[in-house]
């Protein structure tokens, strides 16, 4: 029984990989099966983990009558399917959009704007790093020494790149160019780093096929 299910899993894996050669019916079958399984799974989990404990149980137990409101708003969602009353679903959307916009204003201001700016207020030159560089000149002590000036000046250069009210010309334009260069280094680093994620996923699948399924290793 176990082997049968492993074989099904392996067949599904191979069917999806077959797309890399070219589109084919096996891939299409696997793709559509996956959509069905994934969607069905979510409904089950929503039912047992949200609908029952957060809505139905407290409502039927009579512990929180306010929950009638989200129940109605939830049902309003489905008015989308009936064009005459579809406008009711806007109410439900308004709750979601209002809540998340409000939360986002706070979240982005605190998490990204304020805390990130504060973390950038470092001494332009770190005396500690300077001492280390003086006592032991080398590539890495130099890089450590450069960290702070790079943070402050580089940050300003990139902000200049993102400043839209002035054309990039002259010295100002050169600063923006430095900003772009830094961005490109960031993107290169991002690309290089991500390779690992993708390779790990592939390794995992090959390991499954060769070890779990075929016991070749």
């Amino acid at each position, binding site marked *: 029984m176990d082997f049968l299910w492993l074989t099904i899993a392996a067949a*599904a894996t191979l069917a999806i990989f077959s797309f*890399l050669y070219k589109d084919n019916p096996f891939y299409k079958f696997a793709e*559509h099966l996956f959509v069905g399984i994934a969607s069905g799974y979510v409904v089950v989990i929503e039912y047992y983990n949200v609908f029952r404990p957060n809505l139905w149980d407290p409502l039927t137990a009579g512990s929180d009558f306010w929950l009638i409101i989200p129940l109605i708003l939830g049902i309003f969602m489905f008015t989308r399917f009936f064009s005459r009353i579809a406008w009711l679903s806007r109410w439900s959307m308004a709750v979601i959009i209002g809540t998340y916009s*409000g939360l986002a204003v706070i979240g*982005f201001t605190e998490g990204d704007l304020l805390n990130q700016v504060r973390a950038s207020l470092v001494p332009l030159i770190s005396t500690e790093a300077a001492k280390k560089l003086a006592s032991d000149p080398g*590539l890495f002590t130099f890089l450590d020494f450069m960290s702070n000036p790079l943070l402050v000046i*580089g940050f300003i250069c990139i*902000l200049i790149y993102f400043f839209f009210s002035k054309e990039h010309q002259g010295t100002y334009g050169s600063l923006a160019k430095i900003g772009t260069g830094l961005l*490109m280094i960031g993107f*290169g680093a991002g690309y290089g780093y991500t390779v690992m994620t993708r390779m790990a996923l592939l390794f995992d699948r090959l390991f499954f096929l060769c070890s779990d399924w075929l016991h070749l290793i």
Partner: protein
Amino acid sequence: MKRQIPLLITFFFGIFMIIQYFIPHHGVNEWGGRFQGWTIIVLAFAYVLGVANVLRISLEKVYRKEADWPFKLVTCISLVLMMGIGLVEGVGEDTFFVRRLYNQLYVPMGATMYSTLAFFIASAAYRAFRIRTWHAALLAVTAMLVMIGRIPIGQGIWSGFPRLSDWIMFEGPNMVGQRAILIGAALGAISTGLKMVFGIERSYLGSGD
């Protein structure tokens, strides 16, 4: 009426979520919690609506015998089976639903879908990292440095590679670049959020009355 009420709802919930942050009073907090609880529930309905849409559109295609309709039937059948078995059986660890359908169908397929990216990331690297401009040069050289610094072989070639790659990532140019983009994107997100709350941006309502 059909537009005013949603705008009022958005404003009310949005402004409440903002002021709640500044007011620790337990009454405000309790209502904030209640509203968040409501959103959790409404969003769960939205998810189910998405699934209903998958079913509706697939069935339409089957009914109209559009291209690939047998595959759409596969979607519908697997969806209904997965849902039915899960709802009847529950989500315990020894259920057929978790042990077989989740672990031996959903998991391998999801993992494989993602793993195809390993191939695309390689082919994109092959054709796109051509050093035509100094921007492209920076991009390609950093990508290679970071890659070599991240694997044990790189350390074997020169012991400084991992440290150099870590410096680029966590202290040097990458961190600075990411921070600046974060702040720029945050400004964009905050202003859009405020526009939504105050009803300046209302395209999500669509047109009509």
